[in-house]
C-alpha cells in the first residue's frame, strides 16, 4: 500500500489552519503535515505544536571551540617560542580577554548557522513538493496519507477552497540517503584543504623565490675575495666557454711560468686528494681509494681539453673545481699536470 502526497494551496492562513484542524480530526499525524508560506506564521496560528529546535548544544560547542582557539592563541603559543615584550608578562589577561570574547562569539555564530543548516537538512538535494505560487502569498499544505484516508483528505482540501496541485505517490520522493553525507564530506575535505594548503607556503614546500627578502646581502662576505674592477671593454662571463670540437676558452700555452703557477694552484686546490706531486697519495686517499695518480699514462694520454673539462666540471667522485679557478688558472693546472708526464718519462 503506497502513501500519496497531497499539496493544496490556500488563499489565507485561516482556511489553511482550518484544513490542518480537519486533517488532524481525520487522524493524520502532525508530522505528516507540512505548511509552507512566504512569511513566518507561528504554530499558534496554524494550530500545530512548535517543532523541536537544536540550537543550544551547537552554540555551546561553538562557544567552547572558540574559547579553545583563544586559549591556544593566548596561553599556548607564547610558550611555544618564548618572547618577552614591553615588560609585559608572557600571557597577560587583558589582551586574552579580548581574544576570548571574539573567538567565543565567532564560534557560536558559525555553529548556530551550521545547526540551522543541519536542522533544515539544507542544502536540499532531493526532489521535494513545492509550488512557485507559495512565494506569492499562497499557503501550501502538504500531507501524506494512505489510500484509506485519501478521499477524506481530498475532501478536506476542497471544503476549505484549496487548489489541489499534487497527488503523487510518496515513492517519487525518496529520502536522499547518503547524498547528504557525501555533500558534507566534500565540504569537510574542501575546508581541510583550504586550511592545509597555506602550510605548503609557510613551510616553504612551495617556494616563491622573489619573496625571499633579505637573505642575500650585497655586502662583501668574509670568505669573499676583494672584488677587482674588470678591464676596460671586457664582457664578464662565468666559467669557460665550451664549444663542441673546439678547445675550451682561450688556451694558455705551456711555459715555465705557467707550470709554476699551475703547481701552486695544484698544491692549493688538488693536492689534498691527488697528493703533492700528484702521485695519488693525498691525505684523503684513505677515504677515497679510487683517487688516481696523475702521472698515470691513462691520465697523461688524455687530451688537454679533456683534462680542462674534468677540472672544471668534475668526474665521478671528483668535485667540480671550476668555480674556484678562473679559466686561465685552470689552463695553468692543465699545463702543470701534463708537465708531470714529461718529467716521469
Amino acid at each position: 500500500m503506497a502513501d500519496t502526497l497531497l499539496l493544496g494551496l490556500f488563499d489565507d492562513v485561516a482556511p489553511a489552519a482550518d484544513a490542518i484542524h480537519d486533517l488532524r480530526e481525520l487522524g493524520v499525524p502532525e508530522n505528516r503535515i507540512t505548511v509552507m508560506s512566504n512569511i513566518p506564521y507561528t504554530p499558534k496560528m496554524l494550530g500545530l505544536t512548535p517543532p523541536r529546535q537544536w540550537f543550544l548544544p551547537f552554540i555551546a560547542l561553538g562557544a567552547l571551540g572558540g574559547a579553545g582557539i583563544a586559549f591556544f592563541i593566548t596561553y599556548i603559543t607564547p610558550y611555544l617560542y618564548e618572547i618577552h615584550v614591553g615588560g609585559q608578562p608572557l600571557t597577560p589577561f587583558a589582551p586574552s580577554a579580548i581574544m576570548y570574547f571574539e573567538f567565543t562569539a565567532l564560534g557560536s555564530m558559525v555553529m548556530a548557522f551550521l545547526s540551522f543548516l543541519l536542522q533544515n537538512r539544507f542544502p536540499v538535494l532531493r526532489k521535494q513538493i513545492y509550488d512557485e505560487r507559495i512565494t506569492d502569498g499562497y499557503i501550501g499544505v502538504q500531507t501524506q496519507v494512505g489510500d484509506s484516508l485519501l478521499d477524506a483528505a481530498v475532501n478536506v482540501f476542497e471544503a476549505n477552497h484549496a487548489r489541489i496541485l499534487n497527488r503523487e505517490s510518496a515513492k517519487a520522493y525518496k529520502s536522499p540517503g547518503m547524498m547528504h553525507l557525501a555533500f558534507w564530506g566534500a565540504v569537510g575535505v574542501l575546508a581541510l584543504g583550504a586550511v592545509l594548503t597555506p602550510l605548503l607556503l609557510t613551510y616553504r614546500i612551495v617556494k616563491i623565490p622573489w619573496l625571499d627578502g633579505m637573505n642575500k646581502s650585497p655586502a662583501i662576505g668574509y670568505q669573499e675575495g676583494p672584488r677587482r674592477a674588470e678591464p676596460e671593454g671586457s664582457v664578464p662571463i662565468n666559467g669557460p666557454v665550451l664549444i663542441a670540437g673546439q678547445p675550451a676558452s682561450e688556451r694558455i700555452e705551456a711555459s715555465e711560468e705557467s707550470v709554476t703557477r699551475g703547481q701552486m694552484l695544484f698544491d692549493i686546490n688538488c693536492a689534498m686528494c691527488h697528493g703533492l706531486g700528484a702521485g695519488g697519495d693525498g691525505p684523503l686517499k684513505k677515504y677515497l681509494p679510487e683517487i688516481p695518480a696523475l702521472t698515470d699514462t691513462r691520465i697523461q694520454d688524455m687530451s688537454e681539453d679533456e683534462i680542462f673539462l674534468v677540472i672544471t666540471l668534475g668526474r665521478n667522485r671528483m668535485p667540480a673545481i671550476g668555480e674556484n679557478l678562473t679559466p686561465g688558472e685552470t689552463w695553468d693546472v692543465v699545463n702543470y699536470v701534463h708537465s708531470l708526464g714529461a718529467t716521469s718519462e
Partner: protein
Amino acid sequence: MLESRAEVRPYWDKPIPEDEADAHELKHFRQEDLLMDANSPAETNDIALNAMKSTGLGFWMAVGFTGLLVALLLGTWGLQIVSGLGVTGLNRSVMWGPYIANLVFFIGIGHAGTFISAALRMMHMDFRRPISRAAETVTLFGLSAAALFPLIHVGRVWKIYYMFPIPDERRLWPNFRSPLLWDATAITAYMLGSTLFMYAALLPDLAMARDHTTGWRHQLYKALALGWRGSLGEWMRLEKLANILGYVIVPVMFSVHTIVSYDFAMAVQPGWHSTIFGPFFIAGALFSGVAAVIMVLIVLRKTMRLGYFLREQHFNSLGIFLMLLSIVWGYFYFNEWIVTWYGNLSAEQAILKMLTGQLAPLFYLMLVVNVVIPLGTLWSRRVRTSLPAMFVICVGVQIGMYLERILIVPGFLSRSELPFNWVNYTPHLPEILITIGTFGLLSFLYIIWTRVVPIIPVWEVHEGQAFQSTRRVGRGLFTSHTDMH
C-alpha cells in the same frame, strides 16, 4: 463529507470600509505607511525583481565608471608595491596616514548596517523592514573595502601571512598582545557574523527570486536558496537563528570599533592615549554609517524605482536617528576636547594649537558639517523627508567624519613629545588615488550586488504587512501592529 466553509480573502485583499471617512483615513494610511499599503505579494515581488533586472544605460555607465576606479585602485596599489611606500607622503613621524584613516572610515560605514538590521530587529522597530538588507550590504562591502587597507598600508604585503595564526617553519606565532591582531580578529568575527546573518535572512528572498526567474538567474538562486520552501520549521529556525546571531553580533559590532580605537588609544602618542576613544569611535562609526545608509537608500530609490518600498517614513526615522547620533558624537568630541585642554600637557597643547591653527579650516569644517548642520536642520520633518536635503546633509556628515579620522591619524601624529620630530603631512597622489579608488570599489560591488540579489527584504515587508491593520480608539481610526514574537 465536510460542509464547504466560507471563503476567506487574503490580507492584501481586504474590502474598503463603507464609511466614507474611514475609507478616506485608510487611503491616507496607505500613502503614509508601507505596512498599511499591502498589495498582493505577487505585485511587490515584481517590483523588487524588476528593480534587480533593470540594467539600462545608466547602470552600465555606473558599472564602467566605478570599474575604472577599481582599476585605478589596483593599478596604484601595484605601483606602490613595486616602487615602495616612499611614493606616499608618509614620513618618519607620520607613519600612519590616510590608509589607516580609510580603514577606520570604511569599518565605520560598515557599522550602521548590522546595527539597523540586528539591533532594530531585536527592538521590533518596524521601519527597519525594507531597509535592513541595503544596510547590511553596506556593512559587507564597507568591511571588504576596509580589509584592503591593512594590506595596502604595510611595507611588505607579501609577508602578510606572518600576521596569521598558522604554523610555519619559523615556529613563530603572531603576537596577540598587539592591538593590530585584536583588530584583525574582531573584523574577521564581525565580517563572518554579518555575512551569515545576511545570508540567513536572504534565503526566503532567494527562494522568491528562484520561483520567478528563468535561465542563469534561476539556476543561481536555486543553488543559493538551498531548497528553501518556507515550511513552518524552516521559518521558526530562521527566526531563532536571526535572534541568536543578532544578540551575538551587536556586542561584536561594539567591540569592533572599540578595538579599532584601541589601535590608537593603546599608543603613548599624545592625543591618542585616551580612555574615551572606544565609545567615541563607536558613536562616530554609527554616525557615518547611518549617513551612508541614507545616501545608499536615496540612490536606490532614485535609480531602481523602489519608491513603493522606500518611503518618507523611513527617511524620517533615519533622519531622527542621524540627529541623535550627531548629538552623541558632539558630546564625545566635547569630552575629548575639554579633558585635553584642561589637562594642559605640553604635547597635547601642541595638538590643540595645531587644530585651531594651521588645520583650522579642516577642524571647523568638521564641526560645522557634523554638528551644526545636522542639528540645525534635522529637527524639521520637512528636511528629513526631502531627499535632496538629506543627501546633502549626509554627504556633509561623510566629509566631516572623514576629516575627523584624518585629523586623528596623520594630524595628531605630526605632533609628538620631542618638538624636533614635528613634521607636517601632505597627502601625495597615491593616497588620494587609492582613496578615490576605494570609494569606486565600494560602489562597484554595491551596484553589481543590487542586480544579483533582491536588495529589498521582501519577506520582511510582507510579514509586516500581514500583521498591520487598523484599530478604532474612541472616534478615531489608528494603525495597529500585531506583534507575533
